[in-house]
């Protein structure tokens, strides 16, 4: 049982939680994640540890409501309980002083990239951050990112804020300007990570992505999280989640992540109907 100490929305549908988990807080390193199960009937889902506070004994997660479990989680408030939180899982990010390091985050990927950007800064890198969102309202962690960056850029698909375009457009621009880039970390939707890999490949820039396959246990026991790296299967939960972007089979990952599409839709529909019903009952009760 893990208590929520703090909960607030960062943007529509994206919520930050600070959770009491002293042991994990003490041990976690940048790039690692936890697996969360909200209740007895719940699914186990992986979420990156965005931050931690050893003194307070808390970890921070940032959750985008994309389906049943994440939306249900985002209904939780300060003081509520999460049934299971297990971690820290996965290999920590490989951090060294590369020289100039670019951290690229797309959507909620910004939250996942944040701790690694911090670590890259601490290791002495010149840190450039490029964070993309569909529009201005969906930009998250702007201040936090600025604080760890030597140069910070925000891109929006619709141009409502910052640079008008995709994160890869900005990255290409930096390269074209002759900026010597030694390392790129890219975290976000699969098409974005693939696009970043395609941009850096011709220049031979070392590029790392954090992969998000479907997981169950997170301990190497089920093999459901296997991804193809250089044609060979690796378990993202124990061998990753970070891998060399130029060796990842993104098509296989994208295909595999669609495996339960039908069921996810069904679960979400059930959930939304249930939410509506609860809402109705609440309004009726209030009317009485």
């Amino acid at each position, binding site marked *: 049982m893990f208590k929520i100490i703090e909960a607030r929305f960062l943007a529509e549908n994206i919520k930050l939680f600070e959770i009491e988990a002293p042991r994990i807080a003490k041990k976690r390193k940048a790039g690692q994640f936890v697996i969360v199960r909200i209740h007895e009937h719940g699914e186990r889902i992986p979420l990156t540890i965005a931050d931690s506070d050893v003194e307070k004994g808390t970890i921070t997660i940032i959750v985008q409501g994309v389906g049943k479990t994440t939306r249900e989680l985002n209904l939780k408030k300060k003081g509520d309980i999460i049934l299971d939180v297990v971690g820290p899982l996965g290999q920590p990010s490989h951090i060294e002083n590369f020289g100039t390091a670019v951290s690229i985050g797309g959507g909620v990927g910004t939250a996942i990239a944040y701790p690694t950007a911090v670590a890259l800064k601490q290791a002495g890198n010149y840190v450039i951050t490029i964070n993309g969102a569909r529009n201005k309202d969906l930009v998250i962690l702007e201040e936090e990112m600025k604080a760890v960056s030597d140069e910070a850029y925000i891109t929006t698909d619709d141009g409502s804020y910052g640079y008008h375009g995709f994160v890869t457009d900005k990255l290409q621009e930096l390269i074209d300007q002759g900026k010597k880039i030694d390392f790129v970390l890219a975290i976000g939707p699969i098409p974005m990570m693939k696009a970043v890999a395609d941009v850096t490949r011709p220049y031979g820039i070392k590029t790392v992505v954090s992969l998000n396959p479907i997981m169950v*246990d997170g*301990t*190497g026991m089920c*093999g459901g999280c296997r991804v193809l790296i250089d044609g060979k299967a690796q378990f993202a939960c124990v061998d990753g989640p970070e891998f060399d972007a130029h060796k990842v089979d993104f098509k*296989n990952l994208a295909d595999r992540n669609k495996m*339960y599409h039908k*069921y996810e839709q069904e679960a979400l529909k059930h959930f939304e109907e249930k939410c509506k019903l609860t809402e109705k009952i609440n309004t009726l009760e209030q009317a009485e």
Partner: protein
Amino acid sequence: MNQLTPKERMKIPRHSMIEQDPAERSRNFSEVNLGYTPELAIEEAQRCLQCPKPTCVAGCPVNIQIKDFITLIAEGDFIGAVKKIKEDNALPAICGRVCPQEEQCEEACVVGKRGEPVAIGYLERFVADYERESGKIDVPEVKVSNGKKVAIVGSGPAGLSCAKDLREKGYEVTVFEALHELGGVLVYGIPEFRLPKEIVRTEIDGLKRMGVKFETDAIIGRVFTVDELMEEEGYDAVFLGVGAGLPWFLGIEGENLNGVYSANEFLTRVNLMKAYQFPEYDSPILDCHNKNVAVFGGGNTAMDAVRTSLRLGAKNAYIVYRRSEKEMPARVEEIKHAKEEGVQFMLLTNPVRLIGDDEGWLKGMELIKMELGEPDESGRRRPIPIEGSNFTVDIDVAVIAIGNGPNPLVTQTTPEIETSRRGTIVVDPETMKTSKKGVFAGGDIVTGGATVILAMGAGRKAAAAIDHYLQNGAW
């Protein structure tokens, strides 16, 4: 009962298990075996010849006093019988269900030399169930605390039995488990229809009532290393019962297609995450209704997976195994049950590749016929592919059940613990001591995938050695 002569005893036919009807059970998750009635149990017990030198006992890896407990059953003292078993086996309701009896106690029973052996496993199961259902389970007496702390890593049969023995001796015992549920393979691997989870829960409740502490969601090697358990958390000794939970794949083309599972994932989704009750439970599993499902392998895990697929609605459920039925490592009863339920066996057949469509979904498998050559190191005849015998079969779901290796989470973070080339932990077979002072190991992490009873025996052996070590301090 003393009126019966050995001849008369030999004349009593072995009582078969009362089972759910195959057609019905292959579509539900309730237990297949329904158990003996008291009358059947007494009659079956009368088949035992009360051998002066009972060979059956040597056949049991933990040397249960089989003759004695069967005598008590024949006298109608079921509770006495279960107490007798529990002197050597902490988990009789479980072992009575899942032990490969035909290769162990029953194989060694003299009655079996001329007919069918005494149904030792069924009798063991009967008295354990009788005790549980009567609600009269005794909580074993626990000695006053001796102030020493032992950490048990893993809540499978090895960890549970080690915890029980140490607690009885007065140690402060904490079990750390990575998953959110306790029981190891007993809860995430072996299906409900073979081992109801209620039984595992009852056993664990018993341990809790004895004062064993349990911490779920606690991965050793991550929240604490073994060194930290001993140096910072104050544990005087550590037992590693972390099992062999790393699934092997075949290494053939197409294994990453949608629809291809490891047996661990397939069974975990169904058993631990209750995916067969989706959407009441949130974890999904691919719908097998009217689908063709192929399971690769011939062990208990393969039988569990294939029979689970039938219960999920599969139209055709295949076992693809590269040797013949004789070489199958699964329990004889599981193979029999699988056949009765309609599983189709493709023997002497091996997968060559899995075939997919453009969107990455599994569509079929290419197989090749095999023949048996000379025996290999394992003593089983080596399967050799018959060139040109390839053929394909349409399938929608494939489950790979060719075994598991040791999970390196603990050993990676504690390099002082010596491992074998295969990654299993090396121990002294008498004391279960590892190469690191104060650390013991047992069960599948030492042997590689084996059996519940061997894991349990190892846990008990380690408990005795831990007690010895902590009482006199010598390593």
